């Protein structure tokens, strides 16, 4: 999964972002626009206010940027603090006419972590919006800022047969090469192992019960 992020302060706007290996190919990349609204009421009654718009271009790469519509006013700030004191929820919803997704986080967390906010959008390979998640990374700016992070499907794992066969063939070739060099007889090459094996056998054949050990100690937590 390749995700790139960029910080976008509420005042400015910027582009970004993600590319993935096997996304669909489009001649003209479709563009999606979603409205973003937020709500942070101490009494938990939703009252969503426009926050901005997200534009996303879906092509070989997914580009997206966040367009804020309004400043975060002092009044809003007070409301957010009030909400945090009541252990209320800071909600975000992203929608257009065909889809609506939303998520929430604790207002307290947002304030404690310095008001930085990352909107993680989950976008399907066909460019549809699946979900949103609010991250609150720790920041020391103490100033409201929103960042966009676009996340699409990870490449699916496939059995690595090609590499494995390649490796096997290399090994075979190496063995063939190695085989030519070493022309000693079997016994002259491995006499020490054979002697060791014989000694071990002689030691162990004395006790016939030794063979049926039930195999202990394989544990080890992971």
């Amino acid at each position: 999964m390749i995700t790139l992020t960029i910080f976008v302060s509420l005042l400015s706007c910027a582009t970004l972002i993600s590319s993935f290996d096997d996304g669909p190919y489009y001649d003209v990349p479709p563009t999606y626009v979603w409205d973003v609204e937020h709500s942070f009421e101490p009494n938990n009654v939703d009252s969503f206010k426009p926050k901005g718009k997200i534009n996303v271009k879906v092509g070989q790469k997914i580009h997206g940027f966040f367009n804020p519509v309004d400043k975060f006013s002092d009044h809003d700030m007070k409301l957010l603090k009030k909400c945090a004191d009541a252990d209320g929820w800071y909600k975000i919803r992203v929608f257009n006419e065909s889809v609506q997704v939303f998520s929430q986080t604790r207002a307290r967390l947002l304030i404690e972590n310095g008001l930085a906010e990352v909107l993680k959008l989950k976008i399907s390979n066909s460019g549809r919006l699946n979900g949103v998640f609010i991250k609150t990374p720790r920041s020391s700016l103490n100033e409201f800022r929103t960042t966009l992070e676009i996340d699409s499907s990870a490449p699916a794992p496939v059995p690595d047969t090609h590499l494995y066969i390649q490796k096997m063939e290399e090994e075979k070739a190496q063995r063939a090469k190695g085989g030519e060099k070493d022309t000693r007889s079997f016994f002259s090459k491995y006499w020490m192992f054979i002697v060791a094996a014989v000694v071990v056998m002689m030691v162990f054949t004395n006790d016939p019960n030794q063979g049926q050990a039930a195999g202990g100690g394989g544990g080890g937590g992971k």
Partner: protein
Amino acid sequence: MASALEVKVHPLVLFNIVDSYERRSEDPKRVIGTLLGIVDKNVVEITNCFTVPHNESADEVAVDIEYAKGMFDLYKRVTPWETVVGWYSTGNEVTAHSRLIHEYYSLECKQPIHITVDTSLKNNRMNIQGYIGSAVGISGKAQGVIFTPLDIDIVAQDAERVAFHTISQAKSLPRKVVSVRSDMEQVAKASEQIETMLEKVEDYVDKVTKKELEANPKVGRSLLELINSVPKLSAEEFDTIVNSNMKDLLMVVYLANLTKTQLMLKEKLIHCLYEDQVGKFDWRQQYIGKVQFAAFNQAGQFGKKVIVGSEENVIAALTVKNGELSWRQILENDDRLDTVLHLETAVVAISGGGKFVRAFTINQGFLLWEVNLQSEPEGTATGVIYGGRSEKVAVLANNRVWSVDTSTGRVQWTKTLTPLKSKFQKLINTDSSVTVLRIPSSGDTDVISYSTDGSRVAENTIKNPWMKTDSLECITVTTNVVCLESEKSRLYLLNAAKPHSYKEIVLSASTCSKNLNALFETRESLGSLFGFKKSSGSGMALIKIDGDKTKELFYSDNIVATSITKLNNELIIATATVENQEIKIRFFEYETGNEITSLQMSDIWPSYRKYPNELRVLAFKKKDGTTSVRVFIISDDLSLSMFIKNGGITWTREEALSNILSVEMVDLPVSQIQAEMEDEFGSSGYNLASMFVKRLITQLHQFGTWILHISAKLSKTSGSNSGRAELINDPDYLTRDDFNLHKMIVATTASMKLFGIDNLSGQILWQISITNAEVFDHSGKIALPLYIQRTTAHFPHPPVATVVARHATKAQSIFMTFNPITGEIQGSNDGVLMNYVPIQITQLQFVQEDYIAPLVIIDSSKMVHVYPTEGKNVVKEHANNLFTYTVDTTTNILNGYVIMQEDSYLVAAPSWRVDLMKNEQNITNIVAKRSIGTNYYLRYQEIPFSYMFTVSFLEHVHSQGVVLGDRSVMYKYLNPNLFAVTTSGVDQQGKSFISVYLIDGVTGNVVYSTTHKSALGPVQIVHSENWIAYVYYSVKNRQKRSEVAVVEIFEGKEQNNATAFSSFSVNYQPMFMTQAYIFSGHVSAMAVTVTEKGITNKEVIMALPTGSILALPKMLLDPRRPLVPTAESQEEGVLPYIPELPKLFEAMVNYNQSVYRVKGIHTAPAGLESTSLVLTYGLDLFYTRLMPSKMYDVLKEDFDYFFISAVVTGMIVVSVVTQKFSSRKALSRAWK
């Protein structure tokens, strides 16, 4: 006549004769014996012989006739087709005694052959001469026998010839030893021979052409013939033919060798369980499913059987004696069994709407034949046996009729019927013909009859409206069709043999007043009897068809099922009634309707059995003149019982267990001694003195119980062979054992029955039926969730379990609370009715004061309920911190909720939404992991919107990270709120795909998602700790194969929050490690082992459709397996990457105990950390213990306690003694 006789002797016979001559005892000069063989018209083929001891003196001959008879009987057993054809003797002449012996043999067979074999080798030849004896004398009185010589041919079968050649080779060898040549040597030798022969021919031809030798026209002709017989081929062509033949041969040899090796390997590996351990830790139970067809069969040579066919497309034979499966055939899963027909020696099964018609032998269940009638069937098929003695099977499906010969399975004829408005739906055996009927509720009724050769015998159309009704319910009663019209006041009767004599019968007022509204057909097709019953409960009138009239035999309010059978060529009717937990079977005469009181029988019928649904009766007179009756009962709870006169119900099969929906393994309560001990610690508020007194009292009490216990044990061991049944009656049996290996399996089934099963023996200890309830059904996925609300750990509070079901008719739900150990229901037997239908049920991890973990239920109007209601306070306490979610598979929208308190109400406020785009894909699986305790969420239990998971205990994760080879730690991403969703769909290019999503249930954060292109479901997925593993079917690039993908999630080298995980503060990007493996074979269910503390390695358990259960170490599914092993990976013990997962035979945990159609696997921890208990369920049940890391926490059985304690005591003694010495030495040194 005699001269026309042809005698063929096999070399084996001659060898036998020579051998017996060589081994004769000193005394007799010759050996005689019996010749065995086959007589076919004028050909006598002698295939075997044996010596008969005899004694000859000058004037008499004595033959051991008893011996000859005995030997012949023995030979008869081995080769039943051989008969006595004559006798032989050694020597070259027919002696005077021969006549006497010949006379004896002419009693044994019609025209005995006599053969003499000259073992004295006169003229250096072993002369073989045959004779046939014919009596001579004056008419009416035979005086003697003339032995007429016969010519004898020596014939040999291929095998004999080869053996003979091999043996004859030894003749010239000094040691007379020869070994059988291998195939290749044979070929080489034969080629060599051909070569020499060719050389000879060449030499001859050369000589002839050079005129050195005179041409022999005979040789020339045969040479020409030879050359003509070889097709003209170019050398290369010939080469290729020979080579390809050779290749084929080599391939066969290779494959044969491979199979042999495989078998040898299997033999070695499969015995990794010691033979005496088989069945010790595991058990299997085989089931049939919901039985639809049943009939007694007495013809089988291995005792009486009941042949049954079930809704699950399974055919089986049950032995009448004990109800065990005599044989079972599991047919296709996706087809339904339409009809089962019973022939004399075979069972014919029609399944899949006439897709397959198969015949199985009754004795063994072997497939006799199979025929595919139509590949794309529609609707159901009906079948009937017709044709009188010639027994043919007629099948009607989708407006076509087939006639199948029952001995060969050949389709004799097919007729396509004109498809008018409605289908032909009835098929009736009318003696030597078969009749099809179309009875639409409006329109003409058509009746067509065909004879056995397929010719149309009769065709009748009965003009509408002979019936005045809108809807019809029709049954077949022998050759009659009886229809009931919708107002239930009139019956219509039509005899298929005489269709124009149709009749309308207005039911009498007394019949109408009984509220009877359904017809009941007896399946035996004996007598023209049918039942007319209430659609539910009991009450049935029995009605007899007499010509074109009907006669009500009798009516009873209690009858629930009826059947008809033959006893001494008289028909008798059996009825079943159930009252006050007692079942009564009563018998009535068919002709008069009078009761036969002598046959009446009754037994206890527990209420959980509900009502008997169908009966099959077998009645016969025993040798002593008494009547024996066997009644096979199919009940509403799917159980099958055998009721024997004077024996009561001898066995019962619980077929409900073939469809288990949820399983829990519940700990047994601790024994009384231990419980009292814990009671002592648990109580508080006593002062010191009273505590002391109490302690003394309990210890005295404990001592007393201990003494009792010991004495009971001693008396039991003296009685020694106490079976398991006795054990279960023992009150101490259902107590926890040392390692908590003994548990109670609680299972809910689709037939609304709950079972308590002993996990050690597999015995059913209790059962409960829920009435008026049904399972939650959401687009074919059914569920009956089970929650363990209080475990056994809270003595003296009994354990509590709850099952939630839907009300059968109303928009309500039923909560049934019971004790999972004893099966006692709390409160009413009908459960608690709630006025809502849950869409989501979650079991809380927090407990109320009485240790009950309440259920939190969200209903369809998003209201929050708590069960039991006292649990509300606990929920309120944690409000705003409890989260849950629902998955709507019809819209693919996932909604998260937070439970909040508004005034005094609890509400589920939406907290997140994820939209998985219904127009692109369908949700196929939702799997949460067995959760780990944190305070932030509810455990997820889903009801109809998706699936249900039963999560009832916490999975412990022992280690927070993985220690890498370089001694650094990679921390696992242990998000307890994570759940996996799999979807399947078709993309814009028309290729199918499957997707996997990992979603956080608290925030709706899609943590991970991936899409496998060109892949198909069904996807099986396991989700545990920090990983998921799933199986899908890949169709990429023509490589069609199953693949297993693994995703492991790590936080990285630093841990974010070591103490508690919060879904809201996940601000880092977790690492995803993925890998895929090829798996040879499909997987029908998947699970992962769990252990008490999570220290033991895990195994992924896969049930394969072939019947095996495979336990793969999780280590093999590690995504970090490196292609090229490095020193670090070796240090850590990660296996090198191999794309294919091994399917080891020793990993098949059910060895030869195959289980089919596995739907789920339940794993539970035992008290022993190394052990995980596994129950697989589906059509069959299989229970076993798994020890993924072997039994590392148990001492071996042969552990030498004495030695160890001796060493320890020795050490202590030595250390005490040496201490003394050393202190003395130190003292003396100090004085110096």
